[in-house]
């Protein structure tokens, strides 16, 4: 199936696993190297992921440690032990920089896991609806329309408010509400791909429908799913921080950027750094994800400008 490259403009790449195999990896790096935006995105995302994994080792302070003699200290403050709080301290004297590093963990986990859940459900849903078509498709898509008629963030706010918050619940909620976007897009792709000649050929040599669906059609729509997933990571990270900020997401003592902003909001009159830096962390992270996603789209789907 990997050799199949359609003459139509619709399918232009081989099965995506090829992208990860050895001969292509060189192209991958070179493509990254020649795109400043892609490179910037890649660097940002790498740093954030590095923080999420090794944060505890490089963090200058214990992110949870109170120091009541160093409360509300501005950026650059040097404490009694001679250590510098580069980004200042919060209302309990905790180091802002260390907390931002620690907060990357939740963003990465939520961004990756929730998107994987949503992507898997959405791609399968769209695949089934598009492949079988007819009444099933009509009913399935009406449900998608209905879910899309409630703005994503409102749906998530309502459900997490009702079900109760916490990291695991939040991931599940974001995963089980976020699939709708994939479903619609993937269905559209499936509708195009299933009419292609090689699909007819697969039937002609006697492949069963279910095999055609997973072996012939799925590999050719998955790159669309990957592109979408890349953009959804940013959306999901923003949703998580909004929910945590509103008190409906992750709860203390877990450290997240949204929670840090909720703290900072109480002290805006006296400690601007408490609201400024965690927000910058979110913005830069999402910017990195967006850049990387745009670049990925250009590489995977040369038809889009």
């Amino acid at each position, binding site marked *: 199936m990997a050799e199949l490259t359609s003459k139509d403009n619709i399918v232009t790449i081989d099965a995506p696993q090829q992208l990860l195999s050895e001969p292509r990896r060189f192209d991958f790096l070179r493509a990254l190297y020649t795109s400043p935006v892609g490179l910037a995105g890649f660097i940002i995302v790498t740093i954030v992921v590095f923080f999420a994994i090794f944060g505890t080792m490089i963090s200058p302070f214990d992110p949870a440690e109170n120091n009541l003699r160093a409360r509300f200290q501005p950026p650059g403050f040097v404490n009694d032990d001679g250590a510098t709080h580069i980004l200042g301290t919060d209302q309990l004297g905790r180091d802002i920089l260390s907390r931002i590093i620690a907060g990357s963990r939740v963003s990465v986990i939520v961004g990756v896991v929730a998107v994987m859940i949503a992507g898997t459900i959405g791609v399968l849903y769209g695949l089934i609806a598009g492949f079988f078509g007819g009444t099933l498709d009509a009913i399935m898509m*009406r*449900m998608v*329309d*209905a*879910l899309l*008629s*409630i*703005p*994503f*963030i*409102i*749906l998530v*706010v*309502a*459900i997490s*408010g*009702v*079900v*109760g918050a916490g990291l695991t619940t939040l991931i599940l909620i974001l995963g089980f509400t976020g699939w709708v976007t994939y479903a619609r897009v993937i269905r559209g792709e499936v509708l195009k791909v299933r009419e292609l000649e090689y699909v007819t050929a697969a039937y002609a040599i006697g492949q069963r429908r279910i095999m055609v669906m997973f072996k012939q059609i799925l590999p050719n729509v998955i790159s669309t799913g990957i592109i979408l997933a890349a953009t959804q990571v*940013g959306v999901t990270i*923003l949703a998580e*921080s*909004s929910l945590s*900020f*509103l*008190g*409906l997401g992750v709860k203390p003592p877990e450290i997240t950027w949204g929670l840090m*902003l909720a703290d*900072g*909001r109480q002290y*805006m*009159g006296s400690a*601007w750094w408490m*609201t*400024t830096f965690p*927000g910058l962390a*979110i*913005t*830069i992270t*999402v*910017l990195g994800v*967006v*850049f990387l996603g745009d670049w990925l789209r250009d590489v995977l789907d040369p038809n889009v*400008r």
Partner: protein
Amino acid sequence: MRRYILSRLVQLVFTLFIVSLLVFFMVRLRGDPISVMAPPTFNQEQIERMREAWGFDRPLLEQYWVFLTRAVTGDFGQSIQARRPAMDLVLERLMNTYKLAAAAATLGLIIALPLGVISALKRNSFIDLLSTLLASLGTAMPSFWLGLMLILIFSVQLRILPAFGSLEPTAIIMPAVTLGVGMAARLSRLTRSSMLEVLNKDYIRTAHSKGLPRRAVVSRHALRNALIPIVTVFGLQLGWLLGGSVVVEAVFSWPGLGRLMIDSINVRDITVVQAGLFWFALSFALINLIVDLTYTIIDPRIRYE
């Protein structure tokens, strides 16, 4: 045309039916709806009384039927907190949210259209690069953080705008900007790409060659044709604005539907949350219908059968 509107209205009814299922089962996601709805102070006897009063001891199908037949008449039950019909509370707040969304959408358009057109006309110029950068920032920035930063600058530092509430006429400025920036970011990108596409068309060259002034070509020939995708996305963005209002209203204590939802979630006033969700869905669906009908005005070639 009439048949088209009729079929769209049938679709709308189906959408609302799905939404009603969602709203109904949302409260039952954790099993017992009482565990979600009862204030934590309730004792066993009060809980039992509540269960009976709300009919939670009846069969599920019967409960849903009662819920649905009442919801159709706009009756979502009493607000537990305010002891008034939940729908009344929602309707009181609705106008404030619409007002905010309208202000933000207007602002978004005022920024996005000229910026997008100029970017397209002066492609790769300094202003194009700047607007690309701003657009990326606008999409990556969490809206609540932008709101906090505005408060920090204009309320805390400069003291020229009220940080919260809706009493002063200037109070709408910061929430509207906060909401509008995200929209401006998305729309300006789209305006740019849509304009670029149209500017390459033959009829633009014709218009130029027959000696029309550049201004006329851009505004009457190019922009009008570029508008169709812009209107589509504008409609979708309005839904996004409604969603964003939840977070932004919380930041600025703007007394709209979004803040009502958050407040109600915090005190577990579930009937209000249900009624609010329902209104968000209805508003969004109606906006999309209106957007689709607007096409016929912008592009007389489009006729709905």
